[in-house]
């Protein structure tokens, strides 16, 4: 069966029109190693054969106890999340094209926006974005639009992947991106002071930082506002059960990845990104926004609102070219937060923090291991090893433990540092195993 409708004749014609010799030439810019080696697929299997094969493959994975975070986190997902999000009424990943016909979907997104506002302490949320990294880039572009300036200052303690995404998104804009190397796992406030001027649209930080350090950016907000710039903060949603919210700190735009809110790890996605801002910036917000209104008879209803910002109306002058959201994953975030409730979220955050503190003490007691930064942390923290962290990670994997994220690839000079994450799912026994195996990996 052919999955493309074109005849060989048509393909030849199209290639000739654009002046390309063959299909292979058309894709020559893709490195050879990344191109498909062959499209000769093996013959089809029955359902039973296929399932057996997949089980066999899955069984090769083996059991590894994960202490890896760095943006994606292994949290408990209540059964209600899979069950409700899997209902046929919701089970579509896309924005409906006649949105007001789908009042249920719009209501769910409206409730989602409400929980994101409560979580971040900010006034306005959109109906979600792709992920934490793209949300950060959208926030930076939003600040550029709001201020009409052309420089963005990124804290080097931000997730390095997210910083790379910001650079990619902004690559073709007449914008300067300044990155400040972190000091002790946090923003270098001293060198920031010298960089904050009238060209600066936004200062972008993260809490906790990629090193796990918890910060209070309240004074920074005041400092940034004095220069009429915006403060953008990436946040770890679950940590907000315990930490001061962006709104409380005076942050203008908060973003984050929604994976930790009820979405499976699944090798890195799909999940969603959230963005929330002070109300005065809502017209510069990207993406879809659901509003609550009343119909002709006074009954409550939901609409997509402020659409004049969007590309189907404002064309090339739209605030963003994003018209999609991650409805289904955002819905999972909503169900997750609603299942936990306000107290549940606080309890979850506290469990994370307590277990991480316990693990921190256990690891500090391992010979040769030190805790370099003496600051509060949430559920992840940096440890320094007497050897290269890459090597330790490799030998720990053989011992059945994924010990953390080595920092050397992202921060020159930190080759011996490792970020360890401990969620509520890690047991006392697993933490003991971590400490014991680390001792073994370092000294045996």
């Amino acid at each position, binding site marked *: 069966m052919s999955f493309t409708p074109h005849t060989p004749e048509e393909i030849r014609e199209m290639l000739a029109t654009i002046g390309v010799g063959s299909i292979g030439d058309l894709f020559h810019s893709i490195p050879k190693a990344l191109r498909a080696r062959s499209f000769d697929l093996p013959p089809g299997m029955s359902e039973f054969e296929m399932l057996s094969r997949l089980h066999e493959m899955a069984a090769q994975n083996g059991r590894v106890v994960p202490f890896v975070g760095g943006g994606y986190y292994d949290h408990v997902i209540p059964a209600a999340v899979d069950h409700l999000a899997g209902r046929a009424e919701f089970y579509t990943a896309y924005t409906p094209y006649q949105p007001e016909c789908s009042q249920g979907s719009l209501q769910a997104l409206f409730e989602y926006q409400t929980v994101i506002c409560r979580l971040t302490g900010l006034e306005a949320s959109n109906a979600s974005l792709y992920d934490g990294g793209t949300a950060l880039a959208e926030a930076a572009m939003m600040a550029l639009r709001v201020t*009409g300036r052309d420089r963005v200052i990124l804290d080097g303690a931000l997730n390095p992947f997210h910083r790379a995404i910001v650079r990619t998104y902004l690559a073709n804009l007449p914008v300067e991106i300044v990155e400040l190397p972190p000091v002790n796992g946090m923003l270098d406030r001293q060198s920031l002071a010298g960089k904050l001027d009238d060209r600066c649209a936004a200062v972008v930080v993260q809490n906790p930082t990629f090193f796990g350090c918890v910060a209070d950016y309240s004074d920074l907000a005041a400092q940034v506002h004095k220069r009429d710039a915006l403060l953008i903060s990436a946040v770890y949603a679950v940590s907000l059960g315990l930490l001061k919210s962006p709104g409380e700190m005076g942050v203008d735009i908060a973003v984050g990845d929604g994976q930790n809110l009820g979405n499976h790890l699944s090798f890195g996605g799909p999940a969603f990104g959230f963005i929330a801002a002070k109300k005065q910036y809502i017209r510069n917000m990207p993406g879809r926004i659901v509003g609550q209104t009343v119909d002709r008879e006074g009954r409550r209803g939901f609409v997509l609102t402020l659409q*004049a*910002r969007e590309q189907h*109306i404002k064309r090339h002058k739209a605030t963003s070219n994003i018209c999609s959201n991650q409805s289904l994953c955002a819905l999972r975030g909503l169900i997750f937060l609603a299942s936990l409730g306000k107290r549940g979220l606080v309890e979850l955050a506290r469990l994370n923090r307590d277990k991480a503190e316990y693990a921190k003490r256990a690891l500090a007691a391992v010979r040769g291991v030190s805790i370099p930064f003496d600051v509060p942390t949430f559920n992840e923290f940096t440890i320094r090893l007497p050897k290269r962290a890459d090597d330790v990670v490799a030998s720990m994997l053989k011992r059945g433990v994924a010990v953390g994220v080595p920092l050397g690839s992202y921060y020159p000079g930190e080759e011996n540092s490792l970020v360890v994450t401990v969620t509520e799912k890690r047991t006392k026994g697993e933490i003991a195993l971590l400490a014991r195996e680390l001792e073994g990996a370092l000294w045996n």
Partner: protein
Amino acid sequence: MSKMYYTKEHEWVKIDGNIATVGISDYAAHQLGDITFVELPKLGKTVKQFEVLCAIESVKAASDIYAPVSGSVLSVNETLNTRPEIVNESPEEAAWMATMKMTDPSEVAKLMSRKQYDEYRKGL
């Protein structure tokens, strides 16, 4: 004595000495439908004639508003922030959007009188 002029993009401008007051024509307001938001220009912004001055959103569309003359923005009509519907109610009086300090009075030669504008509109 002030004089009103119009542009092909349906802005009006009232000239008082070197002060120009800018808005959109009743025809434009009617065509746009219910106005939901006026994005006023920043104070001090300088623009050349027929460059984008600010923007307006209605239930149907989002459009740019072009500067009828070159100059810098002296003041904006803050009332439109909370009551954009004035643009529909009184487009050529209460709903002025900005006043500008004109830099080149000779530019009015490129604008239309009300009579010329009415003729122009009939041809659309």
